[in-house]
């Protein structure tokens, strides 16, 4: 039987209402995502403080300055450190808590879910201000308590000491967005058919075996999405750092987004903003992340091929 293939235009016309429904979103995407990205690509070639039209053309000098700036590379290091600790710890804790909260026998499960999810619905800026006030106003009280317990040997400025400030940000970051991953994992767990566990149980599988051979494989696809979202969220860390430490002391907690913000909006003191340099930093960081993602994909494919060959 000959099936006449419809042309692309014909198929698009047939699905015209779908395109019409997608149009508002596409328009917003173009205006608020595509246009700013394209515009800021142009800004990377100028020295511009954001006032009037950019006129001082500097070519690729902004990129050269970013690549040669040790503060930028420090910010990259802090961002990767944040991601490297927050993502695995948070996912491990979220999965563990999700497994507990998924137990049918657990009483007040909804209450616990609410408690763990509450920080997520609280703005990071508000959380940051409260934590900052806590450590600044009661820093001496906390110190005296720890000194009395002989847990520390001297006073510590928790957010003002480079040895501790990043650690505090990481701990607060884990606590603040843990609820998201918990809910995602919980949703994933609830999609696993109960029959699979019953079958495993009949086959004599224990709790560990059921987790390994039923839960983990069934969560794999949703787990990849959760991992991706956690990575994206962590790489975007900004507001918590901005409010807690403003990237200090002496750039000890500067992450790439606060670095870009400080360039674009002038930072502290009477420093003039440099939108061109900030755009260059933003683009360069984007390219860096894309390059890393490509490497990651290639490595994963290579591993998968090797596994398949075995």
């Amino acid at each position, binding site marked *: 039987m000959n099936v006449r293939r419809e042309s692309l235009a014909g198929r698009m016309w047939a699905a015209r209402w779908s395109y019409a429904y997608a149009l508002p979103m596409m328009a917003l995407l173009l205006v608020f995502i595509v246009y700013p990205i394209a515009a800021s690509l142009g800004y990377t070639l100028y020295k511009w*403080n954001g006032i009037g039209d950019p006129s001082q053309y500097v070519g690729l000098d902004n990129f050269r300055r970013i690549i040669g700036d040790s*503060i930028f590379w420090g910010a990259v290091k802090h961002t990767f450190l944040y991601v490297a600790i927050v993502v695995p710890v948070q996912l491990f804790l979220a999965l563990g808590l999700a497994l507990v909260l998924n137990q049918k026998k657990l009483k007040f499960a909804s209450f616990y879910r609410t408690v763990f999810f509450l920080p997520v619905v609280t703005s990071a800026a508000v959380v940051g201000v409260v934590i900052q006030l806590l450590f*600044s106003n009661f820093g001496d009280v906390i110190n005296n308590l720890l000194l009395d317990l002989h847990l520390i040997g001297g006073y*510590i400025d928790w957010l*003002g*000491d480079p040895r501790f400030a990043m650690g505090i940000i990481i701990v607060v970051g884990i606590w603040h967005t843990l609820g998201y991953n918990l809910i995602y994992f919980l949703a994933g767990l609830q999609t696993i058919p109960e029959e699979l566990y019953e079958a495993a149980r009949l086959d004599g599988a224990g709790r560990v075996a059921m987790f390994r051979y039923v839960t983990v494989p069934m969560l794999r696809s949703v787990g990849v999405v959760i991992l991706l979202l956690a990575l994206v969220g962590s790489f975007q860390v900004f507001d918590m750092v901005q409010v807690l430490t403003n990237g200090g002391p002496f750039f000890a907690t500067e992450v790439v987004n606060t670095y870009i913000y400080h360039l674009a909006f002038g930072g*502290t*003191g009477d420093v*003039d*903003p440099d939108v061109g340099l900030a755009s260059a930093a933003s683009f360069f960081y984007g390219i860096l992340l894309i390059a890393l993602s490509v490497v990651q994909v290639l490595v994963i494919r290579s591993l998968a091929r090797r596994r398949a060959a075995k």
Partner: protein
Amino acid sequence: MQRRTLIKAAVAAAFTPALAACGSDDKAAAGSQITSWDWLVSQADWMDQEIKLFQAAHGGNTVKKTTQVTDKYPDLFALAARSGTAPDVFQIARTPTLQEQVSSGWLLPLDKWANESWKSKFGPGWFGEGGNTFGGKTYSAPFTGAGSNLQLYCHHGLFKQAGLVNADGTPQLPKTWDDVTRAAEAITNKTGGKSFGLGFGNSQGGALAWLTEIFTRGAGAVGGTNNLDYRVGKWTYSTDRNYADFIGLLLDWKRRGFIFPTAMSASDEQARAFFAQGKFGMIVNGVWSQAAWKESKFTDYSLVTLPSPTATPQGYFYYGQGSSARMFGISAKTANPDAAFAWLDWLYSKEAGQRWVKAGLGLSAYPENNDPSLVDFAPFAQYVATSTTNLPGPDPTLRNPELAKVKVDAVKPDINDVLAGLYTSQLKDVAGALSELDGRLNKAQEDGVAAAAKAGAKVSMADFVFADWDPRKPYAVKPA
């Protein structure tokens, strides 16, 4: 609300602007609402009082004030100006430079109202190209007089508790670096660890520079942390040993536990509150903090300024008339220029300045307002008495107005960053860090001058050198 009332209100709202537009300019100005922005947080009571008085004197005109967060003000104002929604009257943002703001068309020239007679009330020398005048047009005027920029505040209660009292029972206020060290040590030791000698709040990044500024100026580092040393026309952090000496002293205070432990993460506002609570005995701050302390009923303190290695300061604060001659401006986009100027003129009146002084907020641009005997509040009278520590100094832009075209890029890390790095031991080599900072700053200065010269401005690095300046005496800028 009844539907009929709602309709009436809507009709009234729709026609009011149209009816107002039909009147004469004066009538329109008399019934205008003026929007006004500032970052005068501690001085909000004074501003609110001025608004009330202005509104009472200008029947129908109202002022809608918005006080913005200090460190975000330049960003917020720039956004408003760029989007054409700048307030009618505003405190002039520190960045971008006034020259750039004028070039961007953000400010309205005041020449329609600010004639020679209006300008003459401020005294001679306050209006000049590069200060508040650009291209022959005047955009602002001086508001505050010159007092000591920063002071070292001493908590009476803690000084007495530590036995730092004179024979007459008054607190023994420190004058030298050694005095400060002894006082800090006594307070820390004699309060049993409950209080510390010194404190500050550096989370916004500037408090360490304030400390350095007040101590090194007293020692004779005449550039402080804001200016080049105009005797040589360069930044001298590494070549003037006073900076390294003071940083060494600061680190010694930290090592000996004299400094409030959470000083690096506390904000300046928090630090001021901690000082009032007696968590530490000394803090470097500005006169603006007095209003907030007074409001919270804390008045048991004194101030000194320019503590130095010897009892007599070797350097002072200096003001250039060009840079001090601006405070408020009017938006070029204002719909009510006459009403806006009426409000601006009110703020610049001698009476408003007198109330500013009496409220203990600062000195007035009118010298006759700065009479300590008119001041009831003792700490503020002490501040007025320190006005002798601020001398007229070199002002390169007054000597060569072409320098207004020089745009010097800020450097990173700057003095605030370097001090934070040294204080937190992330930078170990004081001399090396200061030398690198000098290198960055002097290169930025030279690059700025070179770029302006290339664009046709008649400028050179020599314009920043005032070889005949004796920092212990008032300096009158001579024309080039």
